[in-house]
């Protein structure tokens, strides 16, 4: 049987991404259904992540599935020394799909190799987080009407920010122009700049974050600059306030510009920005629900046509 796991979407073709975006749109129109009645979704969070887990569990519940799983690895056999393989094999005999988060890189890929049921990677260490990327793409598509030819400004921690790396790779076929705005210590790693060059992706690097430098943005993707990422704390003190978005910086921005943030935010977007028509980060989180409903259905072999002709919609 073909394994329909979603470990990464970085190498997905345009038509597959469009297919998932169209499916997410269907779920936005009608999020509550009984499409997965009789199915069991397991959410195995070997590393805690309340936001992602709640989003996946809500997606499963709104589609009529039952949810089993754990949110704290301390309460599981893995803390007693059970291997990941054994845990996955055991849960595979109970569930129809496994959503898993793990602190180790490559854990989801390995899990997908030891079971016949599909795995959805809900984050493996600092490696991949495809459902976040999917909801980012859906948010961009929904607000801009297209993924093509956009100016995407990424701000803050571009070195460790897994979400910006995944987004960058998944946008490769849409002719974007990236602007990387980051302090020297947290600039975009060489391997991703090389990826841009190899794939003909245009990018501009800058350190200034001002009203003028973001005036041409279609998407402003903010990330958190974390203190623990700095070896030189004096450098942190110097830059910590330089990458904070304030409402008075939005005067010159384009009408269609939207601000995204993977959340949680700390102080990198001031609260007065929340009232701006450009603020989109809470809607972005909500879009995660529809994107995850689409991902769960896709791995279970439910097609877009079936979603469109679904008679189990709860109105």
């Amino acid at each position: 049987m073909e394994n329909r796991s979603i470990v990464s979407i970085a190498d997905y073709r345009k038509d597959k991404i469009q297919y998932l975006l169209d499916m997410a749109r269907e779920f936005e129109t009608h999020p509550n259904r009984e499409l997965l009645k009789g199915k069991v979704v397991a959410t195995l969070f070997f590393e805690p992540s309340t936001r992602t887990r709640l989003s996946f569990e809500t997606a499963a519940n709104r589609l009529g599935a039952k949810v089993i799983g754990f949110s704290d690895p301390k309460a599981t056999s893995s803390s007693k020394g059970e291997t990941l393989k054994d845990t996955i094999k055991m849960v595979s005999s109970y569930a129809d799909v496994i959503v898993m988060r793990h602190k180790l890189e490559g854990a989801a890929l390995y899990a997908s190799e030891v079971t016949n049921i599909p795995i959805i990677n809900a984050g493996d260490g600092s490696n991949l987080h495809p459902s976040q990327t999917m909801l980012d793409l859906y948010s961009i598509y929904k607000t801009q009407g297209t993924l093509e030819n956009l100016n995407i400004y990424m701000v803050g921690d571009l070195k460790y920010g897994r979400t910006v790396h995944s987004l960058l790779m998944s946008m490769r076929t849409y002719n974007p122009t990236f602007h990387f705005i980051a302090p020297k210590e947290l600039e975009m790693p060489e391997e991703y700049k090389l990826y841009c060059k190899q794939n003909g992706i245009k990018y501009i690097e800058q350190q200034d974050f001002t009203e003028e430098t973001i005036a041409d943005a279609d998407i402003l993707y903010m990330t958190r600059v974390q203190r623990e990422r700095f070896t030189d704390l004096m450098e942190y003190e110097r830059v910590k306030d330089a990458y904070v978005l304030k409402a008075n910086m939005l005067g010159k921005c384009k009408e269609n510009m939207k601000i995204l943030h993977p959340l949680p935010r700390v102080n990198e977007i001031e609260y007065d920005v929340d009232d701006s028509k450009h603020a989109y980060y809470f809607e972005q989180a909500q879009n995660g629900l529809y994107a995850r409903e689409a991902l769960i259905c896709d791995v279970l072999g439910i097609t877009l046509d079936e979603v469109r002709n679904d008679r189990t919609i709860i109105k």
Partner: protein
Amino acid sequence: MMVAALESGSVIDHIPTDKLFTIAQLLELENFKEEVVIANNLDSQIMTRKGLIKIAGKFFSEAEINKLAVVCPNIRLTVIKDYQVVEKRQVTLPDTLTNIVKCANPVCITNNEPMKTVFYRMDTQTLKCRYCGKEQKLKDIKLK
């Protein structure tokens, strides 16, 4: 230097002189009961100086050859049976290495789970871990 001809076994030739003892250790030559010849700093037209190992009665498996290829990508392997050369080949790094290389990334799943590693050859000097995706230079590689 004169060495008796091999009746049956393998000859590893064109070993860089600084890699000879790494190879000897890797093959665990101290455990071989039949004749083993280890020579270093021999004249070579291709590489000026070279190392060479002859092992009687030993025929390498693909997995062993791949291991050699990681340590010394350009050595030459000759297989001899009844004093006849039956195979002579340049050892090259294969496209995929299964369970030979250890991933240098401590938070890679392969270092925390009893499982096989898989590496892909990106170019002549670079391998990439199938699981964590991290690239590693051949010169820094550690074997499993």
